[in-house]
């Protein structure tokens, strides 16, 4: 699809001149440290390699009265097995993940299947800042200000068909850019999935940034899912395919160890895990562990999705 000039461009959609200049300066300095960025030590440099900034973001669409995790911790301590299995590996390895050009397949039970460039995918969606809790299945948690937009808005654009019941996601498969894929720790590419009503829930977003900046590569640039009431592994990173399906899709950790990682993977202090006590969590930056809340504290909004289900069985 060729780039089209948008005649309906509104004044507030135009990047202010000062931002444009600043972006230019950042890009120039990023070019200077380009060689250094190959080492991936500086998340900012790695991020700016991606190119354009975020442009306009609606602040405070979802807020949270809890202390935010530092950018340094949120970008320096994460799980992204394709960039290494240690939690500090992804930040070190980040520069191998080249995120431009990037395109996403949207297919399956949709009225308008096809492949879109990242720019086309993002264009109609105003970006919002949403501060969410993030609870990893490994019993640690963070509070992260994401920048993104509701997944529902994107799915509606591609017109889900009447038979669509689930949404399947795939991370890019490219062992050169994601060297962790050279070893079969998990069946690659990483796959995740949601029930359609979970995917359409207003809390479910696709994120392109955090802390007001473009997503660092190790956090799933350029496009990732964020489902705040589920364990972090559900929030798949670096997405290249979104398929609407009739059957429950295969998901990576569930396929790896079905007794440990369920398809739903809702944060649930009542369901024990053989390695982690799920009734408590360590909030990064805090000393003592705190109690884990059902649905990660989003029960009021999402518990209704699971009415009548036994969540100790469908964990």
């Amino acid at each position: 699809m060729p780039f089209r000039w948008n005649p309906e461009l509104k004044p507030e959609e135009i990047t202010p001149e000062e931002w444009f200049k600043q972006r230019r300066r950042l890009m120039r300095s990023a070019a200077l440290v380009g060689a250094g960025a190959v080492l991936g030590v500086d998340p900012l440099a790695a991020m700016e390699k991606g190119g354009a900034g975020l442009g306009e973001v609606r602040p405070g669409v979802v807020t949270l009265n809890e202390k935010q995790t530092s950018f340094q911790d949120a970008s320096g301590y994460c799980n992204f097995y394709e960039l290494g299995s240690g939690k500090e590996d992804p930040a070190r390895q980040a520069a191998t993940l080249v995120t431009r050009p990037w395109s996403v397949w949207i297919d399956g039970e949709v009225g308008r299947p096809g492949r879109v460039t990242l720019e086309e995918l993002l264009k109609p969606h105003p970006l919002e800042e949403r501060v969410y809790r993030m609870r990893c299945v490994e019993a640690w948690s963070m509070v992260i200000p994401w920048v993104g937009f509701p997944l529902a808005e994107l799915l509606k654009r591609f017109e889900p068909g009447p038979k669509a019941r689930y949404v399947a996601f795939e991370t890019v498969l490219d062992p050169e850019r994601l060297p962790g894929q050279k070893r079969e720790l998990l069946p690659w590419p990483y796959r995740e999935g949601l029930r359609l009503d979970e995917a359409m829930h207003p809390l479910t977003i696709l994120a392109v940034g955090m802390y007001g900046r473009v997503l660092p590569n190790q956090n799933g640039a350029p496009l990732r899912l964020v489902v705040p009431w589920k364990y972090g592994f559900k929030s798949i990173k670096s997405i290249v395919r979104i398929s609407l399906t009739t059957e429950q899709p295969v998901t990576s950790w569930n396929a790896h160890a079905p007794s440990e990682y369920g398809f739903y993977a809702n944060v649930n202090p009542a369901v024990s895990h053989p390695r982690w006590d799920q009734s408590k969590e360590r909030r990064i930056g805090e000393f003592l562990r705190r109690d884990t809340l059902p649905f990660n504290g989003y029960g009021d909004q999402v518990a209704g999705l699971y009415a009548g289900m036994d969540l100790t069985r469908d964990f």
Partner: protein
Amino acid sequence: MQRLQRYGWLSGLIPLVWLVLGVWQNTLGANPVERLIRVSGDWALWWLLLTLAISPLRHLTGWSGWNRWRRPLGLLCFFYALLHVTCYGVLEHFFSWEGIWRDLLKRPYITVGFCAFLLLLPLAITSTRGWMRRLGNRWGRLHLLIYPAALLVIGHYVLMTKADYRMPLLHAGVLGGLLGWRVWYVITYRIM
């Protein structure tokens, strides 16, 4: 040389100093508690493997001087294991016996790791000259407990691993080599 034998074990406290400085200056990363528990556990395992390496080294080099290092290495292993267990009890559970008990029942790697620690405990207590004298022949038999303890430690490592088994398997391989050498030694020299 004599001084090295006397004070050499102090170098085993370097990882502890590094950890204490790390806590002090907040350089242990985003999750310092996890780092403390991991690093103390790693060192307990490494000292254990070094302790088990003494006999093969003595045999290979023909130098009996290695023997003097066995007790300090074993005690360093126990010291780091104690640090590991203490960090877990205090920083992870903050003395919540209920929480620890639940872990012991529900998390196999904790059960196995705790059993390993229980086996190391009498070995540390009876490491003195006085206990060696008192126990006589039985001292050697008691200290065979290091073998089941080492196997349990490796089991603990494997069970706590999420998907990437390279490190636990590497350590299992080293332990396998050290135990395999003993099997070979016993068979070759018909000790039993």
